């Protein structure tokens, strides 16, 4: 599995898990489906970009930083659309991005890059 695919997969799963934690807030129950889908797509986008970066740069530290920055950026955009819950969306998004960035550095192959 290449790094981009691995990133997308990890992003999708971690994004979904992050979205699912909204269930702990009763007022979100009615919108949980939308939150799950949105969070999964957000995670997948972070994973795709982190995976693309991991194919070019093999550095766990910079992978974590980039993932965290992307997670923060996408979470900010989501919060901006709602004009609310900035902290509740951005803080977990930041850490989830860092995890995705780490996983894309540690897993997946860079075979296609080496063949060039």
């Amino acid at each position, binding site marked *: 599995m290449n790094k981009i695919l691995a990133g997308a997969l990890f992003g999708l799963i971690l994004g979904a898990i992050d979205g699912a*934690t909204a269930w*702990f*807030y009763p007022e979100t129950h009615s919108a949980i489906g939308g939150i799950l889908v949105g969070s999964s797509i957000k995670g997948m986008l972070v994973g795709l970009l982190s995976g693309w970066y991991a194919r070019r740069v093999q550095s*766990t530290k910079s992978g*974590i930083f980039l993932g965290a920055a992307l997670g923060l950026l996408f979470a900010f955009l989501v919060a901006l659309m709602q004009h609310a819950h900035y*902290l*509740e969306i951005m*803080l*977990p998004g930041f*850490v*989830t991005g*860092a*995890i995705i960035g*780490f*996983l894309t550095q*540690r897993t997946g192959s860079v075979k296609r890059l080496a063949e060039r």
Partner: protein
Amino acid sequence: MDVSDSVLDHLRHVAALPDLADTRFELESEIGRGGMGVVYAARDRQLDRRVALKVLDSALAGEAQLIARLEHPAVVPVYETGTLPDGRAFYAMKLVAGARLDRHLAGTASLGERLRVIRRVGEALAFAHARGVIHRDLKPQNVMVGAFGEVYVMDWGVEAVAGTPAFRAPDTRLDRRSDIYALGALLQFILPPSAPPALRAIVAKAMHAEPAARYADVRALLADIERFQEGLAVEAWAEPPWHRLRRFASRNAVLLWLLAAYAGVKFLLFFLRNL
């Protein structure tokens, strides 16, 4: 010792010096003395370079032919062989500027550096075994570490040498498994007292009294050392569950910290919300 004794000693020493008049080499000084001969530093007049010259006690130069078969970065290359007027065989080889393994480690070598040296020695052994050559006398005194970290294994496969007791396998017949035993003994020698149990288990398996219970080949031993260095489970040790857990935690420390940070953030947000 009176004057006549010292004169006699001097004469004996001079008489034992190799006569290199018919060779391209010029004697400089004695470097070392072993069971099979004496090693001198010499100058190659033709190529204007310093070499190590080993003069054997016998006419047999099989050792040189054997080493010449081993073209490997960790085996000192032989330049030339010959016979002295007194019938003794000699061979010239690269003069390694460095320290013997025991002296090299007397400094502040880290565990990683110690294992690096062992792996280089093991690679040379595996290479030799693949060519049907066994070392027979692997010990710290036969391993040199150069100024740039290069590792050389010396004194290969001399039939007459029965090995050094602390590094010699209890086997009646010396073969590849005896070299594996010696490599295990070398690993034991370089390990600090606080060595992890996984490394001690590798030593125990390599030095097992029963040859069949040792590693099947040098590569298997090296693979176990590599697994240890990568934080994986080693073949030689059935580690207890708590140790496996600790190894997992240390191998995945960053991921665990990130997951803990996520959980911490979620708890913090939940706590702030319910204030």
